[in-house]
């Protein structure tokens, strides 16, 4: 976009890019530096010595996996139905689902809390998984329906003529074609489920049931005001996310930015 013929111009471009990028690394540098202050690696040892890190990670993984499973199944079935099958009042239902896109999760706070208590699933991971999935599905259905709309209907025809019923057409022909969008959905749901804070905060009280976003808070109460250990726990939580992003860079960028593309 910018054209720089002379060296001076190139230097200016490089300089501006660097100046923009630096503030984005600073907090990460501060995080690592802060976590190593005082006892150095000892902070990390103290965090792991509490023995809860594994539990929090396992719970987060379970929440993310459960949410992804529900979102994936609901999204694929519904998007195929909306795009390729006949449904009375289709667009009305579709817009009803879309309207849920704007819903801030804090609105669901009291109903979910009250319902979870009534059903006896308060303090259980499923109480977090279900609302997370319900909040994610409207968006993934929008994305995936558009994707299905791009698959020619002739493909359905051909399958039918060859004697395949709707389910087989979906399973053997449509589903394999949706791999690119499915990857985006999985990544998007993974990040949203893994990073969610409000629902676990309200619905998971038992420390044995809590997830990684609650870990820094746990250490704030564990280590009183020892910031270094709180930061060490933040680094421990951040590292898997950074590694996941670095190893699947393209997928993450596509999946997360799909959020704004229609």
């Amino acid at each position: 976009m910018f054209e720089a013929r002379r060296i001076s111009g190139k230097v200016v471009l490089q300089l501006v890019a660097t100046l923009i990028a630096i503030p984005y690394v600073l907090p990460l540098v501060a995080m690592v530096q802060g976590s190593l202050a005082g006892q150095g690696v000892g902070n990390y040892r103290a965090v792991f010595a509490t023995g809860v890190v594994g539990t929090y990670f396992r719970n987060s993984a379970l929440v993310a996996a459960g949410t992804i499973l529900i979102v994936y199944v609901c999204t694929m079935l519904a998007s195929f139905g909306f795009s390729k099958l006949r449904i009375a009042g289709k667009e009305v239902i579709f817009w009803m689902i879309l309207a849920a896109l704007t819903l801030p999760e804090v609105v669901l706070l009291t109903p979910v809390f009250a319902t979870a208590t009534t059903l006896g699933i308060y303090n259980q991971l499923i109480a977090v998984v279900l609302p997370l999935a319900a909040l994610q599905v409207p968006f993934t259905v929008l994305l995936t329906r558009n994707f299905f709309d791009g698959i020619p209907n002739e493909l359905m025809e051909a399958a039918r003529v060859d004697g395949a019923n709707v389910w087989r057409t979906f399973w053997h022909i449509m589903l394999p074609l949706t791999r690119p969008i499915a990857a985006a959905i999985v990544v998007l749901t993974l990040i949203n489920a893994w990073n969610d804070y409000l629902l676990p905060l309200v619905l998971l009280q038992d420390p044995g049931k809590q997830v990684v976003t609650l870990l820094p808070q746990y250490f704030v109460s564990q280590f009183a005001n020892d910031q270094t250990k709180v930061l060490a726990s933040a680094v421990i939580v951040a590292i898997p996310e950074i590694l996941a992003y670095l190893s699947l860079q393209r997928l993450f960028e596509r999946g997360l930015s799909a959020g704004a593309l229609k």
Partner: protein
Amino acid sequence: MPHTEVETMSQSTAVRPVRRRPALAAGRPARGRRNRMQATGWPWILPAVVLVVGLVYYGIGYTGYISTLDWDGVSPTPEHVGAANYAHLLKDPVFWLAVRHTVVFFVVTFAVQTVIGFVFAALMHSTVRLRALYKVVVFMPVVLAPATMAPVFRQFFGVDGQLNWMLRHVGLDSLAQPWLAQSSTALPVIMAITVWQWTGITFILYYAAMSQIEPEILEAARIDGAGNVRSLWSIVWPMCRGTTAAMAMLGVIGALKTFDVPYLVTIGGPNYATEFLGTLIYRVSIPQTHVGYGAALSVTLLVLALAGAIATALRSRKGGRSDV
């Protein structure tokens, strides 16, 4: 490839379609390409509809009902108060403060993110070294949970934090201040954290939009004598309008949903300086157990979010039409 799969599976289900096909052809001749697939889609959309209606719409209805109660969430005999919670809300200065913060927050974060994201995307399309590294650096925060980064920012902007340390080291001691503890700087800090978190998305979207612009167009502008800034402003920026509109909509909804950062970094304070609707609803509903009032705030928030989404959608559509 799909064709062979169809063949192998049609062998196993050879009976059913044969029976069905003549009936279909005789009874209802296919009307149009779209209507040929006769199966009804209801069973297919049912799981998603149950999930969304069962949780989201049920939740909204429940919240709407609670919003007419004076209730602490546990008492078996909540008192019906009609619209009293809403009347209270209109007179609540903290509510209006939260609304004002949301508006300021949206305008500032959207503007800053757009400028940085757009310029950075243009730079990444230029001859700059280490582009791969720069891109990763700017996008990384998107992946990290605000809840994970909150303690980092509490320290970074603290009195003895890294920011003040840096300011003192470059001789700007006078600028060093308790960023999170004073009303005047707390909200800007919350906005800065949000910009830090989400510029990656803005950047990636502009970057993708710019890849679609044909180099010939820019070359033609160059030949006509347009400089870097001129062609960026008069050609590239208008061609990225769709991205800007999408980001505006996302920004409005995002601003209304704001919770994690102000709750974890400043707890809405000091003195309500970083109160947002999300933090207000949480504090009223959970620690203060004014569930009825919290529900009234929730319903209001939902109405604002819907109105905001519709308004931005309409505006971007209108803008697009008048220009194209």
